[in-house]
């Protein structure tokens, strides 16, 4: 980008000058021309002018507040070529946005550096405090701090959080408790809104408070704004207390689904404020609009979800943009719903839920990771920003404090929530198998936090119709602060005090999956025998429909026919393979390593040629790639270590390497033999032994009695110099070549794979040109290495029992 400096030389007094000044960039190409030839043409600012010959110029329409000085039309002494210049206004907006986001991230970082504080005070509180400080700072400096712009909030800050929640929604629990959640969301919110609105109206009518001018409708509107439980606040607080899944999904599900109610009530009362007379028709229309808003939102979400799933079917060649499809389709669903004044949140949730199982069956593992991390990242940043801005807006906004109004709002909010929860639970418990205990009810009532949505909704109110908006804002902010600070801070000790059941860190195991599926089928069968079309019956029917028709359309290739158990099993394998490799492979051994191998459970196992689960080619390829990449890294690490050591003698180097390898192999072997259970195929073939001996000068002879035991050997890629031999190959090979140690003799199963055909490939696991189909796949049947204190990293790929 070139800018022109305005050099008045030669122009003297040319008309209204451009209040621009740009350094002469044109001098570079035509160095002979002096500054005198720099021309500014055009009388209006912002004109692009064509350059005089030889000078390429471009004038950019800069704002008038460019900090570069404006030239004066008079001839000026030549300005030296400005090597450095400042132009803030050009980058102002992106710069400030980035600064805010950076601030948010640094804050997050800071809280974890000081662990003592973040244990007591939930992050959301700290962030609001930070926001207050920042706002105060800005005000102190003299600028006016920015207020949380409602449009930005609804269009940019809220969707990532909701998408993150919807995409990773634990579907099984959600559907099991759907009735309860819906009742809490719909009936509960309605109750809150009307109770609060009505009572506030009554309060306003009490003389002496100066609030007489606030009509019933305004109060009802206020009630509807503030009655909705806020998903952002709930997420922020509940994430940290690790409460049991039932309560979590109840409160969280309620906060998501009450969006429809809030939207309807908000628009309804806003409209009614303009109408003089509210008739039955209006109420009826309002009632209908509720269904339209919620179901319409869900419908839009489902459509976008299906389209996204369908698109992902064809992305096998361009894996890199797969995550983008997920994000874009979901965002479009949100925007489309907002376009029609439908519930955007419900659309987003529906889209995420619908697309997830199919998309995950289609996309690559890396794309899945990308989606997961991007969503978490965005939602995290969004949440932080929202809370900070809440703080800043508090400082910035105009407030109107009215003691009566604010205190009574707070009071009635709490009372309404408690009464609502109690009443509804009494009703719901008649239909629930797992009743909600009073402890549960307390947590549900206490977890009804309000947050930024209420604030933004209030901010959107039209000032002309609602001139008491400032008072509303103040009251809302007070309630938000109260719920977030007081309730947010005390909920953790209360949870501990009441000994509420916490989330169980269960490791998902293949056993559990088998049992769950078995139970599902059993219960469906019993229901059929009883002739009772219950919950399981319909679920089973849905699953069958899904399997028969939908999966075929939306999932690419073979995966469409993959039953859930197999899919789950593959996922577990992948996960364990990755974990094994990521833990260094050669590094530490997990503490509770299981030494159970096939020998332990089936002593009569013969070295039968067995093929492991029919993994599709791509899955195999993926697993191989992951393992290979990681093992390669190991090799490179070790290699570079060797490069710097002074080795005069190549044989000495090889010796050193061998020693190193041996040591590693011992460790690896210990680990590997716990996991590898694939029995081998045939014993030594001439090619293999030749390859072995040829490549490694230190090759050993195979053990004489190795015929009885299947042996794992992974042969080197090709008979080449030691340098090119894959280290891990050597290690694996070394495993069966070491002088028999006691443990080795008792090894149950060891694997053998034929050497790969093409030289130079250091692909450890490529099947060679085999003569029997059995040695094609070498996969590991990784057993669970036992309970490990590992936190579950987010949701499994495929929801349980879907």
């Amino acid at each position, binding site marked *: 980008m070139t800018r022109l400096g305005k050099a008045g030389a030669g122009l003297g007094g040319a008309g209204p000058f451009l209040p621009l000044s740009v350094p002469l960039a044109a001098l570079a190409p035509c160095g002979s021309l002096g500054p005198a030839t720099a021309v500014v043409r055009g009388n209006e600012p912002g004109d692009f002018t064509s350059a005089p010959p030889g000078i390429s110029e471009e004038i950019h329409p800069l704002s008038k507040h460019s900090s570069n000085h404006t030239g004066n039309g008079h001839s000026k002494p030549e300005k030296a070529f400005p090597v450095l210049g400042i132009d803030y206004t050009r980058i102002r907006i992106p710069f400030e946005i980035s600064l805010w986001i950076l601030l948010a991230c640094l804050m997050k970082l800071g809280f974890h550096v000081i662990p003592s504080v973040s244990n007591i005070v939930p992050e959301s509180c700290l962030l609001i405090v930070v926001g207050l400080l920042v706002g105060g700072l800005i005000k102190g400096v003299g600028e006016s701090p920015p207020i949380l712009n409602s449009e930005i909030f609804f269009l940019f800050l809220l969707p990532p959080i909701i998408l993150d929640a919807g995409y990773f929604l634990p579907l099984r629990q959600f559907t099991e408790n759907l009735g309860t959640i819906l009742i809490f969301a719909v009936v509960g919110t309605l109750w809150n809104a009307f109770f609060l609105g009505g009572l506030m109206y009554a309060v306003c009518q009490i003389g002496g408070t100066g609030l007489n001018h606030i009509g019933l409708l305004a109060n009802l509107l206020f009630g509807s704004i503030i009655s909705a439980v806020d998903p952002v606040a709930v997420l922020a607080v509940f994430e940290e207390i690790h409460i049991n899944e039932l309560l979590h999904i109840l409160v969280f599900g309620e906060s998501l689904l009450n969006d429809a109610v809030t939207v309807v009530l908000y628009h309804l009362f806003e409209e009614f404020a303009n109408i003089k007379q509210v008739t039955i028709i209006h109420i009826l229309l309002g009632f209908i609009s509720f269904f339209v808003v919620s179901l319409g939102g869900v419908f839009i979400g489902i459509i976008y979800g299906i389209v996204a799933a369908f698109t992902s079917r064809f992305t096998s060649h361009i894996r890199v943009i797969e995550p983008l499809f997920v994000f874009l389709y979901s965002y479009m669903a949100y925007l489309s719903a907002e376009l029609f004044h439908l519930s955007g949140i419900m659309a987003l949730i529906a889209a995420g839920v619908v697309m997830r199982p199919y998309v995950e069956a289609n996309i690559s593992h890396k794309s899945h990771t990308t989606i997961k991390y991007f969503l978490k990242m965005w939602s995290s940043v969004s949440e932080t920003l929202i809370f900070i801005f809440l703080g800043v807006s508090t400082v910035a906004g105009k407030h109107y404090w009215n003691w009566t109004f604010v205190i009574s709002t707070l009071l009635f909010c709490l009372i309404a929530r408690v009464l609502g929860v109690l009443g509804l639970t009494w009703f719901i418990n008649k239909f629930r*198998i797992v009743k909600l205990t009073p402890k549960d009810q307390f947590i549900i009532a206490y977890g009804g936090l309000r947050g930024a949505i209420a604030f933004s909704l209030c901010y959107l109110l039209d000032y002309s119709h609602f001139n008491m908006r400032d008072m509303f804002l103040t009251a809302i902010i007070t309630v938000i602060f109260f719920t977030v600070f007081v309730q947010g801070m005390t909920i953790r000790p209360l949870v501990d005090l009441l000994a509420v059941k916490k989330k169980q860190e269960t490791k998902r195991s293949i056993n559990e999956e088998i049992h769950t599926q078995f139970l599902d089928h059993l219960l469906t*069968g019993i229901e*059929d025998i009883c002739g009772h079309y219950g919950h399981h019956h319909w679920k089973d029917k849905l699953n069958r429909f899904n399997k028969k028709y939908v999966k075929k359309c939306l999932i690419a290739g073979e995966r469409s026919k993959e039953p859930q158990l197999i899919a789950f099993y593959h996922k577990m394998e992948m996960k364990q393979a990755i974990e094994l490799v990521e833990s260094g492979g050669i590094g530490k051994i997990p503490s509770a390593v*299981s*030494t159970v191998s096939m020998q*332990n459970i089936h002593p009569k196992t013969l070295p039968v040629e067995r093929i492991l689960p029919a993994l599709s080619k791509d899955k195999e390829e993926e697993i191989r790639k992951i393992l290979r990449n990681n093992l390669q890294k190991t090799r490179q690490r070790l290699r570079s270590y060797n490069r710097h050591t002074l080795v005069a003698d190549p044989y000495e180097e090889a010796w050193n390497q061998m020693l190193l390898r041996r040591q590693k192999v011992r460790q690896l072997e210990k680990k590997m033999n716990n996991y590898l259970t694939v029995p081998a195929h045939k014993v030594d073939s001439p090619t293999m032994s030749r390859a072995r001996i040829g490549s490694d000068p230190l090759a050993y002879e195979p053990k004489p009695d190795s015929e009885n035991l299947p042996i794992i050997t992974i042969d080197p890629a090709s008979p080449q110099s030691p340098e090119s031999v894959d280290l891990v190959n050597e290690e694996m090979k070394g495993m069966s070549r070491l002088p028999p140690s006691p443990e080795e003799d008792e090894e149950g199963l060891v694997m053998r794979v034929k050497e790969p055909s093409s030289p130079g490939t250091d692909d450890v696991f490529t099947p060679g040109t085999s003569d029997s189909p059995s040695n094609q796949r070498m996969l590991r049947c990784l057993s669970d290495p036992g309970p490990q204190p590992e936190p579950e990293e987010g949701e499994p790929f495929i929801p349980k029992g879907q």
Partner: protein
Amino acid sequence: MGSSHSMSEEIQELAEKTGFTSEQIEHLHRRFKQLSGDQPTIRKEHFDNIPDLEFNPIRSKIVHAFFDKRNLRQESDGLADEINFEDFLTIMSYFRPIEMNMDEERLDHFRKEKLKFLFHMYDSDHDGKITLQEYRNVVEELLSGNPHLEKESARSIADGAMMEAASICVGQMEPDQVYEGITFEDFLKMWQGIDIETKMHVRFLNMETIAQCH
């Protein structure tokens, strides 16, 4: 089932024995009559008439469970040929939802009962252990709805699951130790995390006999 006078007595008896309410017993009785074609006992063939049951992959195990003497709380072992209404109710009582007023001990007993029912379903040869072969059988049946799958896949899944079970139940094992099979205690351990008493129930609330048999 006798005259109506003794019927209500019988119903009372049954209600006490199995824990159902008289209303539920009447519903179930109607269903029983429908299934058995108005005869006093049901045989295995009668279950073939239920259309929806055909899609169920573990159909045979379920039907088998109804005739399993261990589930019927009879002392002997093996399979009964036919069951009467009382037996039918006994089996159904395994699927009752828990009641609010149950104390810890009853709850535990309840839980064990349900898990025992499941255990019997897995352990088809009645030897008190779930061996590898039986487990493989279970997984194969679960996957039986997918004809294109190779048998090997089911087997390896079962193997993996068995190994995991062994490591949970026994922990570290020497290479020459053999894990015979999953005993009932081990089975209990495996199910510890899952709330079986809340999951394994059927709502007997409203049971209009909608489903018709052939």
